[in-house]
Each structure stands twice: as structure tokens, then as C-alpha cells.
């Protein structure tokens, strides 16, 4: 490939930046392993699965209930937020009058900007007592899922909205010229064409849900036990780290870094799965 001198310099600069970003991820992984090494040296990896419970001060390190809590809460939030987010985007893009759509979009953007701890606080003081009336004590997987749904809903709504906006005008005009109804246009043309954007939005939201700490910590109850119903109290991996790291020393601290590794592995697996997803391209 023929490159000008300036191009070569730019390529070098961009290449180093890219390398640096990639190296940071590796460095974080390396750091996690280094910090958890003290406990990994004398505690077999299997014990993080087979121990009786999570009581690190007493040398019990079972992580799996927190792993499933993270998975369940993320999955639940995605299942709820995806249809709502897509519906919201379709409304503002295809059904709402332009003025209303503009206001509505600003509102959703505002929702996306609310700090997570505010959601957590609202959840703790409003949602928890409400669900507590249904099934005490109220702090539960369900509350966690609902708060997470609220938090990732704007992410889904805004990315889907942007994906729909990026559907080429020619498609829409052609569909209109064919005399398609509005719903046929949406289901047959717009949604399939925006598919990859929508998937990306959902993945982004999933990432936010997995990483969310404070809001879940405040409303999910934080008891480390395998949940049997949505009313059971759960602790996610992120909440585990936030709850205990301030006062953890020695093996306890190292065990918390192991939960960090577990979280990172979970994210890697999810990203891997997303990569493997077959990407059909419509109309291209």
C-alpha cells in the first residue's frame, strides 16, 4: 500500500494509541491477577465454587451465587428494557408529532444523565417499601431488576432511535411509494435495516447493567445466596466489591479481586458470544 510521509506518521501515531488502549485492558487483567495472587496461591480455584458460603474472614469463598445474581439481574433488566426501549424509539421516530418527539427525546436524554446513586436512593425509599408490601422485606432481585431496567432504558431507547434515524431515506421513500402502511414500513423495512444498531445498543445496555454497582447495592439486599425466586435477596459481584473492599485486608481483599476477575471473565464471555452472533445484512 502506498502511503505518503504524513500518512505514515499518522498511521504510526494511531497505531500506538490503539496499542495503548489494548494494553490497558491487558494491564487491568494482569493487575487483577497480581492482586488476587496471595489468595490464589493457597486456595484452590475450585473452592470459589464448592465452598459452603461467602464468609471470607472465616476462609469461605463461594462466588457462584453472586455470579448468578449478576447474570439474572442483567438478563431481567435487558428483557424488560429492550421492548420498552424499542417501543419508545418507534414512538418518537414514527408516530409522535415532531414537536412532541423533540421534547420526548430531550426527556429520555435527561433520564440517561441521572446518576445511578439517585436511582438507587429512589429505589430504596420508594420501590423497596412498595415491593415490601407485596412480599417483605422488599429488597430483592426484582427490585434490582426494576431499578436496572430504568437505568438502561434510556440507553436502549436512544441507541435504537439513532439506529432508526440512520436508516437511509431512500428505503423509507421506496416503502412509501409502494404504499406500505406505517407498521409494515417499520416491521418490514426500518427495523431489519437498523438491526445491527439495535443489537449494539442492547449490548451497550447489558454492559451498563453488569457494571452497575451503587443502585443495585442499595436495593438488592446483598445476601449471598442462590436466589430461588425474584423476591429473594441477592448480591451482585460489583456490589460485593463495593461493600467490602473499604475494610478488607489480606486474603479477604485478595478474594475481592478474584470477584473482579470473575466479573471481567463474564464480560469477556458475553462479548465473545456477541461476536459469534451471525450478522445478517439486510438491503446492503
Amino acid at each position, binding site marked *: 500500500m502506498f502511503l505518503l510521509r504524513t500518512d505514515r*506518521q499518522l498511521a504510526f501515531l494511531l497505531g500506538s494509541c490503539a496499542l495503548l488502549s489494548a494494553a490497558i485492558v491487558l494491564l487491568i487483567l494482569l493487575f487483577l491477577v497480581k492482586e488476587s495472587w496471595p489468595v490464589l496461591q493457597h486456595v484452590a480455584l475450585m473452592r470459589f465454587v464448592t465452598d459452603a*458460603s461467602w*464468609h*471470607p*474472614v*472465616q476462609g*469461605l469463598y463461594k462466588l457462584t451465587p453472586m455470579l448468578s445474581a449478576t447474570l439474572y439481574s442483567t438478563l431481567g433488566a435487558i428483557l424488560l428494557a429492550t421492548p420498552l426501549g424499542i417501543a419508545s424509539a418507534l414512538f418518537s421516530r414514527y408516530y409522535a408529532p415532531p414537536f412532541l418527539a423533540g421534547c420526548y427525546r430531550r426527556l429520555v436524554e435527561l433520564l440517561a444523565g441521572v446518576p445511578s446513586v439517585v436511582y438507587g436512593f429512589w429505589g*430504596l*425509599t420508594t420501590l*423497596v*417499601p412498595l415491593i*415490601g408490601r407485596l412480599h*417483605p*422485606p*422488599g*429488597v430483592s432481585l426484582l427490585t434490582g431488576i426494576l431499578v436496572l431496567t430504568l437505568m438502561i432504558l434510556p440507553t436502549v431507547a436512544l441507541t435504537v432511535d439513532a439506529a432508526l434515524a440512520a436508516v437511509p431515506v431512500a428505503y423509507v421513500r421506496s416503502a412509501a411509494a409502494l404504499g406500505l402502511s406505517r407498521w409494515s414500513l417499520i416491521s418490514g423495512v426500518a427495523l431489519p435495516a437498523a438491526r445491527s444498531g439495535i443489537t449494539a445498543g442492547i449490548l451497550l445496555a447489558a454492559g451498563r447493567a453488569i457494571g452497575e454497582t451503587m443502585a443495585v*447495592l*442499595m436495593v438488592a*439486599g*446483598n*445476601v*449471598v445466596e442462590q436466589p430461588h425466586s425474584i423476591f429473594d*435477596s441477592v*448480591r451482585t459481584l460489583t456490589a460485593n466489591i*463495593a*461493600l*467490602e473492599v*473499604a*475494610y*478488607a*485486608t*489480606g486474603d*479477604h481483599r485478595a478474594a475481592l479481586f478474584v470477584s473482579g476477575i470473575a466479573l471481567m471473565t463474564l464480560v469477556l464471555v458475553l462479548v465473545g458470544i456477541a461476536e459469534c452472533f451471525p450478522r445478517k445484512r439486510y438491503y446492503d
Partner: protein
Amino acid sequence: MKKLGIVVTLIVLTGAVWGLLRIQSNETKIEKLVLTGSSTIAPLAAEIGKRFESFHSNVRVDVQTGGSSRGISDARAGLANIGMASRGLKEDEKDLLNFTIALDGVSIILNKSNPVNALDKQQIIDIYTGKIANWKEVGGNDAAITVVSKAEGRSTLELFLHYFSLKNTDIKPQVIIGDNQQGIKTVAGNPDAIGYVSVGAAEYEAGQGAVIKLLPLAGIAASVENVRNRSFPLSRPLNLVTRGEPGGVARQFIDFASSPQVNDLIEAQFFVPVAH
């Protein structure tokens, strides 16, 4: 590119020279005060250390955790200038000197609407181990008890377990919380919850209108006053310990930490300053 290279080299060189100068000045002037021990006292000691440094620019206060036992053994072995111990000295530790800088008390809290006004020690143990699961068994409403406990590593949990002679694996909680604030909010939002938090935090929040009440223990009201006069049973002293009479900077630090000048720092951590 060349210009960029020169700029980068300059920045790196300046940094290196500045670093060298700092190290040199460290070697010549700075006096270091090492505190090790209880993770309960460490955050407070670090805050006091910061304020102490602002008055004594030639002193660096280095605070390390590792538990009360480490604080005592480090002070005895001379590995630390001052040890931190969140308990009184035992009989075989009387060779060390002990300076109480603050007191730590834990109160059992209930929602204000709960008709239960007192629980004895055994009832609290039974509630926390899951043997009593309904308020009517202790004279309250017919409602399931929501047991609120603290996350591992917290000093409040440690003190609570120690007083009731429990292990954390014995406790069967429905909710686990991090800091005092979260505990108070949880109990205030749930009429059937029981929790325990620092006396200082609970008294302050109850005074600010939080719908909680502090349960007396062994007939003694849970209040900052009763922690200060050491009559409240669920409390402990936060001590600085030294081997022999401290001198120099260590003496100055202990005097400073025991003076009213740090009362606001002590209260900010929900501990109780000692009576002066």
C-alpha cells in the same frame, strides 16, 4: 515529529529532576511517623494524620492496617511508632501504654412504628440466628422479622459479633448493608426490620427525624452520652498504644489526637470523643 520528540524529552527530564529533588529533600528533612493496627481506627488516624501534617510540615504520618493484634505486636516490637487497637489492653499486654482517643458504640435499631421497645440479649441472638422469625414471639405484631446485618470486614459487625459471642456464619440476614446511612434508611423504610449501626450515626439521624428508635441494652439507653461515660455495654475504646512513654513526634501526635481539636474528625466517623 522531531519537535514532538524534543518536547517529550524535556517533560520527562523535568519530571526526573523534580522527582530526584523531592527524594533528596525527603531524606534530609522529613520525619516519618508509622501507625499500624486496627482497621477501625485507621481511617480516623489517617484523617487526624492529615491535619497533624498541616501543622507540622516536616512530619509524614503513615497509617497501615492489619488488625488490633498487629497494632499491639508492632508497637511492642518497635516496627511502628504507635499501634492502633480497637479494644482495651489484655492482662499480658500491660507492658504497653494506652491512650484512648475515641469510643465506638453500636446500637440496635428498630422502625419507630414497631411496638417492641426492648429486647434482651438472648432474644437478639435468637433473632439474628433465625430462631425467632416473627415479631409476635417477642411481643410485637404478627409480622416476619427482616434481619439487617453488615458486610464482612466492618467494625460494627465485628463489635456486634464479639458482644453477642456469635460467628458471622451463624447470622441469617435478609438484608446486608454497607454503611450506617444505608442501615438507617433500610430500617426506616421497613416497619419490620431490625438492624445495628453506630450509636453516633443513629442518634444523629433519629434527631433529624428518621423514623427509627434506638433500643436500650441491658436496661441502659443507647446514647452518645452513655457511650462517653462508658456505661453502655455494646461499646469499645479506640486506643493508641506505645511501648514506653512516647517522645518527640509520637508524643505530639498522641496529644493532638486526644485534644478537642480533632473532635469533628471523630464525629465525622460516627465515633464518640472522650470526655476532656
